[in-house]
């Protein structure tokens, strides 16, 4: 008897999950996983932030908590404190009452709600033809989120220059200039995924100039605030600059990495509008969109983040925990570069310490990557992207030597 779903095709597996699955099955004792997108300690373990442990217990023991559904737009104290983290405590836009937010299911959820809103209400009504630009390369899920929200025209903008292993600013600016007015641009707020390469402040200014002139919409994806440099304000510079220039924008924030809350799906979509009236209309429509997507967001993670951000001692402890993670990544970057230089590995390796955040685009080609995976049991993405968190003081020599081998023996 035929199934109604008999002809459903198999969807391609997500590359990074397949990589992790292969890593798990590998029996080699020296195996290293440089593919996963999560923080690891020097013992290669996931890390529950000490402040998170503390607040988790507080929540579990709190008998006064309300157990109802959260409001559709989310926990109010979470939304406002999260937006403050992105825009700054004394943001003029916040003072002007033109900043609002929607609690979402992680960064993905925030992108989803923002995309669904823009498709319905931006650049006309239900205009599915507004071009959406994502960086080349970008996080593999960006395309799917916007396309599933109904956008028909998703294009790449030049970003990574493989030749010079850095930002292709000229290409980027060129694509901005040639984009139709009102196009949407998905910008990585800091610690670009997967290249780890961010524009400098000066370069951001140039980007903002063109975007202002051509009325391009800035949709920031901020998944690594604090995690990139170790400093929350520094990592938020680009978003705040755009706000100071008068842009209306969205910022999809994720607290997965900087709180280590991958499993509780804590995200926030910050909305900056021209004025309060516009903001209210936007939020009212977003409420409607949330209601038919997941109805109400989950409470656990949002409560945890809200309590932490709103309690001075806990906030300080959290910033410290974040710096711990960022510092370990910076240390691994410095050490990897040193070891490659010491080994005399051909090529330049400055980009390893110039790049920022969790990921580094090593510049290794697919054949070299294959060599590392198959021969050395070092798992990384075919693009040459590595997760610095997968490096530890115990495996860094092995990895450096293996990269050296790959570069010198495989062309």
């Amino acid at each position, binding site marked *: 008897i035929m199934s109604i779903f008999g002809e459903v095709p198999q969807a391609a597996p997500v590359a990074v999950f397949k990589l992790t699955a292969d890593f798990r099955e590998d029996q080699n004792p020296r195996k290293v996983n440089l593919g996963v997108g999560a923080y690891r300690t020097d013992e290669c373990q996931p890390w529950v932030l000490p402040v*998170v442990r503390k607040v988790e217990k507080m929540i579990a023991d709190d008998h006064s908590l309300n157990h109802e559904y959260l409001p559709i737009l989310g926990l109010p104290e979470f939304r406002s404190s999260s937006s403050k983290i992105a825009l700054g405590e004394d943001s003029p836009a916040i003072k002007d009452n033109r900043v609002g937010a929607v609690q979402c299911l992680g960064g*993905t959820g925030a992108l989803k709600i923002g995309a669904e809103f823009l498709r319905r209400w931006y650049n006309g009504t239900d205009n599915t033809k507004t071009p959406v630009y994502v960086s080349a390369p970008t996080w593999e899920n960006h395309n799917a989120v916007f396309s599933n929200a109904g956008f028909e025209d998703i294009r790449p903008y030049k970003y990574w220059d493989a030749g010079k292993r850095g930002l292709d600013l000229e290409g980027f600016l060129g694509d901005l200039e040639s984009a139709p007015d009102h196009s949407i641009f998905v910008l990585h707020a800091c610690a670009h995924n997967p290249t780890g390469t961010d524009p400098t402040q000066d370069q951001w200014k140039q980007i903002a100039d063109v975007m202002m002139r051509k009325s391009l919409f800035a949709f920031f994806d901020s998944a690594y605030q604090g995690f990139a440099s170790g400093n929350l304000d520094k990592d938020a510079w680009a978003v705040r600059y755009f706000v100071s220039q008068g842009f209306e924008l969205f910022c999809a924030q994720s607290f997965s990495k900087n709180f*280590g809350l991958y499993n509780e799906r804590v995200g926030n979509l910050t909305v900056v509008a021209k004025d309060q009236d516009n903001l209210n209309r936007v939020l009212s429509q977003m409420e*409607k969109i949330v209601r038919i*997507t*997941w109805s109400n967001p*989950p409470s656990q993670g949002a409560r945890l983040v809200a309590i932490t951000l709103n309690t001075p001692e806990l906030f300080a402890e959290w910033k410290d925990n974040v710096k711990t993670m960022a510092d370990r990544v910076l240390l691994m970057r410095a050490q990897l570069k040193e070891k490659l230089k010491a080994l005399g590995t051909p090529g330049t390796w400055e980009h390893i310490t110039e790049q920022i955040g969790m990921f580094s685009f090593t510049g290794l080609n697919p054949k070299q990557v294959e060599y590392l995976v198959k021969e050395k049991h070092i798992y990384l993405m075919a693009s040459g992207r590595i997760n610095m968190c997968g490096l530890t003081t115990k495996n860094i020599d092995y990895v450096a030597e293996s990269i050296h081998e790959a570069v010198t023996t495989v062309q």
Partner: protein
Amino acid sequence: MSARSVFDGAVFMPSQRKLLEDFKRDTHPDKVNLAGREYVGEHGHTTWLPLVRKIKQQIATDPTLTPEHPPILGIPEFTRRATELALGKDSPAIMESRVFGVQTVGCTGAVRLGAELLRSCYCSSSSWSGPILLSSPCDDSLAGTFKAAGIEDVQYYRYWDAESNGVCVENIVHDLENAPEQCVVVLFASGHRPTGAELSQEDWKRVAEVMVKRQLFPFFLIPAQGLCSGSLEQDAWPIRHCVSLGLELLCAQSFSHNFGLYGERVGHLLYVLKQNLLAVQSQAEKFVQTLWSCPPMEGARVVATVLSNPAHLVDWQESVKAIAERCMLIRERLRERLRLLGGPWHWDHIIKPGGLYCSFGLNTQQVEFLVQKKHIYLLPNGCLNVSAINSRNLDYVAESIHQALSSKL
């Protein structure tokens, strides 16, 4: 940049929570909120079951639990137990490996995910847009959820019958007999919102027969398994019956009500298929990634812990039964009060169904009277949440309803 906002085109949307906001602002000492979705206890609040609190505390202090991304489709132990709960542990469909489950963000998330799958895969179409049949009435967000997924053709079958103050199976069978072949039908296994009205097992057999005959596809909703009859098996009977007839189906489950885990958004989408399981599963993964990437762990962990542990399971089943019994008791006491207050009306329809929701057959003016003059908030269609009635407000509610019906409105 121009002085105009890029959001100029966005129209203001009045909040659907208006009723709740009005209630919050109301300062009348006797105000009662009977329009809420959550189960509230005798004390008037939602609460975690004691077992739930205990397990949450265990989770918070468990050093072995790591904050990793859960699998896209959710915690395997959770989906396994949720599936068993709906179908029964020894369901042939489970034995035959024709089922899989996805942990979702609440029941709404399950419906949305199911809708996305239907749109992209149903009837070998890459863009199926309906028709889908919903009950009349049903939760306000249901139609919107299907439409948001691209299923534009939403139609209704008659469910609530004002004449009999209950559900009329003749109407349902008639409407399904005349439905387009192969259309999808949303069915409430139990806990229909907003009416609370239920079909008997005999009724279900007739409905299922039509579904098979006309090749209609069932999309079950079971928002409060166990809370309606007090029995987990009985509340899930309609689903199990359809599976036994060989029907393929989707089933959206919620653990909000029966665990009191409203805030944690614990839902499950169950797929029962004839074949091609892996391919459909891979498509489900694809859609999950465009919605929320992977689901939140906390609530599902609690549910999985309870459902996997025999002692916890018994404890939980008793809590669920207690909730169901309290709801039934409130209905009986309300009926008794109303009967004593006199008048030509009959109140048996209040006690017929179980669970949280109840339709009183009040008209718009009567509802408005209750809200405006008596500060008793219920849904515009006259449906209410019985759990919010307690020993302190029972008399006031009964008298007010009596008044609403008696006055010339």
